[in-house]
C-alpha cells in the first residue's frame, strides 16, 4: 500500500478531488487551513484567507501503488501550473 501526501492551495481542491476520484482512489482525507512555504520562497500565511488567496490543504491518500501512480500523474499536471507539492511513501493498512 502507498501513502500520498498532497499539499496545494484550497483554490484547486475541486480540481484535485476530481482527479483523485477519476483514478479510483478508495478514500481520502483533507485537512484545511494549512500554512507553509514553497517554491520561490512564497509564504502562505493565515492572512492569505482575508487577502483572498486562501490557505493550503493537505490531502492524505492511502491506496494501492497502481492508483497512487495514476493519481500522481494527474495531480502533477495541476501542480505544475498552479503550484502544489506531492510525496509518496510506503505504508500498510492496520
Amino acid at each position, binding site marked *: 500500500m502507498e501513502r500520498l501526501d498532497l499539499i496545494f492551495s484550497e483554490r484547486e481542491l475541486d480540481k484535485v478531488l476530481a482527479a483523485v476520484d477519476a483514478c479510483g482512489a478508495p478514500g481520502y482525507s483533507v485537512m484545511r487551513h494549512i500554512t507553509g512555504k514553497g517554491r520561490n520562497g*512564497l509564504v502562505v500565511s493565515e492572512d492569505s484567507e482575508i487577502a483572498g*488567496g486562501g490557505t493550503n490543504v493537505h490531502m492524505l491518500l492511502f491506496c494501492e501503488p497502481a492508483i497512487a501512480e495514476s493519481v500522481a500523474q494527474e495531480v502533477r499536471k495541476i501542480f505544475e501550473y498552479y503550484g502544489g507539492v506531492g510525496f509518496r511513501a510506503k505504508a500498510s493498512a492496520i
Partner: protein
Amino acid sequence: MGADLVLQNLLSPPVLFFFLGVAAVLCRSDLEIPSPLPKLFSLYLLLAIGFKGGVELKYSGINTEVMLTIAAAIAMSVAIPLVSFPFLRLRLDVFNAAAIAATYGSISPVTFITAESFLASQGISSDGYMVAALALMEPPAIIVGLLLVMLCGPNRSKGQPGVRWGPLLHEAFLNSSVLLLIGSLMIGLLVASQGELGVEKMKPFTDNLFYGVLSFFLLDMGLVAAKRISDLRKAGTFLIGFSVLMPLLASVVGVWLAGLIGLGQGNALLFTVLCGSASYIAVPAAMRMTVPQANPSLYISSALGLTFPFSIIIGIPLYMQMVKRFIPAF
C-alpha cells in the same frame, strides 16, 4: 483646515484600532485574531453594508444620477488597469503587471466602509446606490486584468491550459464578495419594499453593531498590513511609489468625475475612495486562479500593506478636503 479632518479621522475608533494592530506587530506582541474569526467579520461587514445599501436604494430609487455614477464607476475600473499596466511593465513581467493593474482597478470594501463611517461622523449623508457601484467595480477589473495577459503575454501554446472564459467570467461575477454584496443589496431592497418591519428587526444586527465590528476587523487589518509591509520593502521603491501615487492619481480623476456627474459631497467622497482603493479580496482570488504565474505577495502586499493603510489614514481626509474644495455643499 485639513489638519482638523485628518485628526478627526485619526482619532476615530476604527482607525485607532488599526494602529493598535500595527503597533502589536511592530513590538512583536503575540496578539492575533485567529482564523476564521476575521472571516466572520468580513462576511458580516459585506452582508450589513449590502443590506443597508439595498434599503437606502429602495428609498432613493434609481434615477439618472444613479445610472451615471454606476457607469462612471465601471469606466474607472476599466481605465485604471489600462493606465497602470504600461507603467508597471517598466519593471515587472506581464503576469505581475496585469495582476497589480487589476488589483488597483478594483476596490476595497473596508476602505469604503471606513469612509462611510467618516462621513457619518461629519454629519454628511450619502446614498445606498454607492454600494451597487462598489460591487460593480470588481468584475470589469478582473476581466481587464486577464485580457492584458492574453494580449500581451507570451505565447501560451506550450501545453498549458488556454484561457477559459467560462471560469473567468464566473470568478469575476460570482466570487463570494460580489455575490454576498449584490445578494444582500437585493435582499435589502426587497425587504424595504415590504415595509418598515423587516428593516427594523434587522437594524440591531446590521446597524448598531456595525461600527464596533468594523473596529474589531480593523484591528486585524492592522496586524495583517503591518506584516505585509515588510514584504513590500523587498519589492522595492518602484512598487511602493506606485501603491501611493496610483491611488492619488485615480482619486483626482475620481473627484473630477464626481463633480461632472453632479454628485453630492457624501457620494463624491465615496466615489473617490472607490477609485483610489485597491482590492485585496476578490481580485487576488481571481488572479490566483487565472494568472497563477503572478506572485501574490506582490499584488496582495501592495494593496494591503500600503494602499489600504494609506487610504484609511491619509486618503479619506485628503479626499474629503479635495471634495470640499471642488464640490459645492449642496
